[in-house]
C-alpha cells in the first residue's frame, strides 16, 4: 500500500517521501481501517523537523500522522465493539502512528464510530484536537458559568475548545487575529479579542480557567489573568511535575518563574498530554451529531499533494484543519 513517510529529520520539503509498504498486521485487539481521510496537526510537523526527538523518537522511515477516518475492513478476534463496514474515526496511539496511508491498524479502544452527519474529511480533523480540548477542559472540571480564556480560538484545538466550553455552559473569552474574528464569533465565543488591536489582559481578567494553547510568554501571562485559586491548563508550555514523573523525570521541577507565579496566585498549573480514547471520541460524536460541535476544515488536499499539505500547516495560518483525502 502507498504511504507518506518521514525519512529523516529536517525541513518538510526534504524529509517526506511516498513509499510502498505492506498492509499492517492486525493484532487481536485491532481493527484495520481503510483510510478515507487523514488530518495533520502541529505535532506532525514538529516530528518531521526533529523538535520532538527526545520525547517521541521515531525510526526511519515512519509513516506520518495520527488522525484518521475511514471504514473498518478487518478486525482482530478479540474485537467485539466494531463490525466490518463500520464508519469510524480515531487518533491512533504512538506505536500505531501512520494514518497518511491506505490502511491503518488501530487498537479498538482508540476508535469510535464517526459522527453520521459529517463527511470522512470533516471527521478526520476532529480526534487529536477534539481529545486535546475535551481532556484539557474535563481536567479543569469546566462547568456552567465558569469564565474561561481560550487562546488561539481559530486554531484546531482552540476552535473545538470554544465549542466544548460553550456546550458546558461556560462564558468564553478567546483571542484571535482580525481576519478571524467573525468566524470565531460564530463558533459561539462570548467575547472575541482581536489581539492585533486589543490587549486581552485588560479584558479577560480574573477568569476561572486559562487554556494556554500558545506557550512561551503566554504561559506566564496566564497567571496575570487567572483569578486567585483558578487554573492554568497548557498543552504547549512546560511539563508540570506530576506529568514529568509519568515520563520518568523524577527530579523535574516546574520552571522557577511559573512556580513563583503559581504560588503567588494560588492558582494551579497543569500540562495536558493528550492520549487516545475511543470512549471520549464517542462522546464527541454525540456532540457533533447534536450540532454542539462542528468541525472546521481549512483545506482538503489529495493524497498526491500531502507534502503541500504539510507546507500549508507550516505557515500556521490555517483556519481550521488541514485534511488529506486518501481514498
Amino acid at each position, binding site marked *: 500500500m502507498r504511504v507518506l513517510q518521514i525519512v529523516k529529520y529536517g525541513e518538510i520539503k526534504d524529509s517526506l517521501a511516498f513509499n510502498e509498504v505492506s498492509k499492517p498486521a492486525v493484532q487481536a485487539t485491532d481493527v484495520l481501517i481503510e483510510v*478515507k481521510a487523514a488530518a495533520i496537526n502541529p505535532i506532525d510537523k514538529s516530528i518531521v523537523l526533529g523538535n520532538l526527538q527526545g520525547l517521541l523518537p521515531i525510526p526511519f522511515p515512519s509513516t506520518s500522522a495520527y488522525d484518521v*477516518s475511514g471504514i473498518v475492513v478487518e478486525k482482530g478476534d478479540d474485537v467485539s465493539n466494531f*463490525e*466490518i*463496514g463500520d*464508519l469510524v474515526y480515531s487518533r491512533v496511539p504512538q506505536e500505531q502512528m501512520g494514518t497518511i496511508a491506505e490502511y491503518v491498524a488501530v487498537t479498538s479502544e482508540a476508535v469510535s464510530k*464517526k459522527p*453520521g*452527519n*459529517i*463527511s*470522512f*474529511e470533516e*471527521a478526520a480533523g476532529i480526534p487529536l484536537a477534539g481529545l486535546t480540548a475535551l481532556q484539557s477542559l474535563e481536567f479543569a472540571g469546566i462547568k456552567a458559568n465558569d469564565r474561561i480564556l481560550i487562546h488561539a480560538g481559530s486554531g484546531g484545538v482552540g476552535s473545538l475548545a470554544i465549542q466544548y466550553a460553550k456546550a458546558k455552559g461556560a462564558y468564553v473569552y478567546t483571542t484571535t487575529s482580525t481576519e478571524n474574528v467573525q468566524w470565531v464569533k460564530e463558533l459561539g465565543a462570548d467575547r472575541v479579542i482581536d489581539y492585533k488591536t486589543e490587549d486581552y489582559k485588560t479584558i479577560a481578567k480574573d477568569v476561572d480557567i486559562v487554556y494556554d494553547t500558545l506557550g512561551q510568554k503566554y504561559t506566564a501571562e496566564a497567571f496575570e489573568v487567572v483569578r486567585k485559586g483558578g487554573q492554568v491548563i497548557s498543552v504547549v508550555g512546560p511539563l508540570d511535575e506530576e506529568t514529568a514523573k509519568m515520563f520518568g523525570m523524577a527530579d523535574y521541577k516546574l520552571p522557577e518563574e511559573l512556580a513563583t507565579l503559581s504560588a503567588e496566585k494560588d492558582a494551579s498549573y497543569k500540562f495536558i498530554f493528550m492520549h487516545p480514547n475511543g470512549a471520549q471520541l464517542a462522546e464527541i460524536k454525540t456532540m457533533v*451529531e*447534536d*450540532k454542539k460541535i462542528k468541525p472546521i476544515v481549512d483545506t482538503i488536499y489529495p493524497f498526491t499533494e500531502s507534502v503541500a499539505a504539510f507546507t500549508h500547516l507550516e505557515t500556521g495560518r490555517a483556519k481550521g484543519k488541514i485534511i488529506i483525502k486518501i481514498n
Partner: protein
Amino acid sequence: MEELIEKIKSNHSLSQEAEDYLHSISSKKSFAKGEVLIRQGQQVQNVYFVTDGCLRSYCYDKNGKEHTLQFAIKNWWISDYIAIHSDESATLTVECLKESEVVKFNAKDLELMLTLFPEFERFQRKILERHVVSLNKRILNQLQLTASERYTLFITQYPEIEQYTHNYHIASYLGITQESLSRIRVENAKH
C-alpha cells in the same frame, strides 16, 4: 407475533394452517438501542415486523454522510428490499433507535408461504400497494411542499418518532439541513 396475526386477520382471512405455518417461520427478537440488524454491504436474508420500539434504515454516501430512508415503529415492516429482491448486497443499514422487539422472517420462507397459502398473497399485495402509495406521496411531497410543510406532516403522522431520533436523522429524511430543521422547529414553537 400475535400483533401481526391480529393485523392480518383484521382485513383478511387466514386459515389455521396458514397461521400455524406463519408461526413456524417466525422468530421473536429483542434488540438494544444502537444494535444493527442489517449492515450496508452485507447479504440480506430477513425482513422484520416491528412489535415494539423504533428503527431506522439509512445509507451513507461516498463522502461518509448518512441519509435516512425510513423509520419503522410498531406494526411497520423494515428491511433492505432492494437487496432482497435484487439479490444484491445491502445498500442500507437498519439500526435500533431505542430498545426494540421485532418478529424476524427469512424472506425465502415468506416467499414459499405465498406459494403454499395463496390467501396470504393478498395480504402481501396490500402491503406493497400501501408502500407504493407511501413512496409516491413522499416523492410528491418533496416536490410540492415546503420544508416546513413536510416537517409538520412528518410530526403529525409520526408524533412519537421525534423522541428517539437525532436532529440529523429527521433532517436527512426530510432532505433539509439540520440548521433549517432547527429554524422550522423554532418557528413552529411560536405558533
